[in-house]
């Protein structure tokens, strides 16, 4: 049974040969469709609020365009196979995979490919059980929660543990595959994780690979992009850098990017959180302060970082 509103598909789809010249000449109102779904708004918001990520934005625009055209085709009575929407997001930590997944859910909802547009983010622990017979109900429970929306599986490769052949992860994968196939109308699955590990995962699970239509790779941010992100985050939190602080932060990032466990935007957020902590401590120690002091992060707050002391 399908619950998707198919109001537009009033008549049975037509084969290409059956189309008359008049029908072919009839104009299809793409603009009205774009307006109606307000898809531009979401895409623009994506452009505005996410720094960098050029290839990702391109790919999302392509997918959105395809879905829009598919809907238009259906509305004029052309045969249109239902698209496969399951995706994989690969990239290093902190490159915006979860954020983009949230937006993707919104886009799919606007275009009518998922009914609710919510995002359920899970990891291996939410899907795989502790003992025999525990995995299937657990996975199904998560899938049921995600129905009508998008299921985001972070670090999906941990589902598959080749070194332990009795690992329950395999069971979760099988249920997942089945639902991805039979409930394509009900939910969209996005798998996310590091590029190399995901590739390895897909190599050992060819069934999974063939059910995923879109592979999107998230590049690392450049230094300038990270600074831009930092400025954006600060503005959201109601702080600002002094020029000296900004320079210090640039030097901080240069060093931090060379260090292990650098997690792109997440590292920026953590660094800013620590800077706020030091700023608060500095003001507290001084006793008196102005409103300007409260919103300003100074170079001193950043230069005290461990990153500078080690080198």
């Amino acid at each position: 049974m399908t619950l998707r509103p198919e109001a537009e598909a009033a008549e049975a789809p037509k084969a290409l040969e059956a189309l008359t010249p008049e029908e072919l000449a009839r104009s299809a109102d793409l603009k009205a469709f774009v307006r109606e779904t307000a898809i531009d708004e979401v895409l623009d918001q994506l452009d505005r609020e996410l720094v960098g990520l050029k290839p990702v934005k391109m790919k999302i625009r392509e997918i959105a365009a395809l879905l829009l055209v598919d809907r238009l085709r259906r509305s004029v009575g052309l045969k249109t196979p239902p698209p496969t929407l399951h995706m994989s997001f690969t990239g290093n930590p902190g490159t915006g995979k979860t954020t983009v997944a949230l937006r993707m859910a919104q886009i799919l909802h606007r275009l009518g490919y998922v009914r609710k547009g919510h995002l359920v983010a899970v990891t291996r622990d939410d899907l795989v059980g502790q003992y025999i017979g525990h995995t299937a109900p657990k996975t199904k429970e998560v899938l049921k929660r995600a129905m009508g929306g998008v299921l985001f599986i972070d670090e999906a490769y941990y589902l598959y543990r080749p070194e332990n052949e009795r690992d329950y992860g395999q069971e979760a994968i099988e249920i997942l595959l089945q639902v991805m196939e039979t409930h394509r109308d009900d939910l969209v699955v996005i798998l996310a994780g590091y590029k190399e590990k995901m590739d390895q995962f897909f190599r050992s699970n060819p069934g999974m690979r063939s059910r995923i239509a879109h592979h999107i790779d998230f590049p690392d941010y450049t230094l300038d992009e990270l600074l831009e992100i930092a400025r954006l985050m600060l503005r959201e939190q109601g702080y600002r850098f002094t020029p000296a602080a900004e320079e210090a932060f640039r030097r901080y990032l240069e060093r931090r990017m060379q260090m292990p466990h650098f997690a792109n935007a997440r590292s920026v957020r953590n660094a800013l959180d620590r800077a706020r902590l030091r700023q608060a401590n500095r003001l507290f120690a001084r006793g008196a302060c102005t409103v300007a002091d409260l919103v300003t992060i100074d170079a001193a707050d950043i230069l005290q970082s461990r990153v500078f002391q080690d080198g």
Partner: protein
Amino acid sequence: MSFRLTQGTFSYLPDLTDEEIAKQVQYALDRGWAINIEFTDDPHPRNVYWDMWGLPMFDLQDPSAVLYEIQKCREAYPNHYIRVSAYDRSYGRQTIALQFIVHRPKHELGFHVIRQEVRDRQIRYTLHSYATDRPKGERYVD
């Protein structure tokens, strides 16, 4: 005229279609009620102990998950009564806000009235379901 069990909400309407069930479930989900599926072959109105089909479903957004479970339950128990209940926990105790039958055996068995004569020619009445004359699991057949 064959017997038709009437219990819960919508009991005097024709059986709900899957689409109508989905709409009712959506109504419940919109109000934050948890959905539970139960089945039984003892349809006595005072039988409150129906068997649970899986666990109650919390945190759902979409009725298709409930319909999926209803379908699975119908496949497993084609000759049982199946009902959907929606719990409203906002009162701080488990309260059924909505409960309706979504599946019934093909041939339903009715009830008969038992009259018991007691002191002073008084009569006590009680209901007995024909179904429960047979053991559990064998009560309804195609």
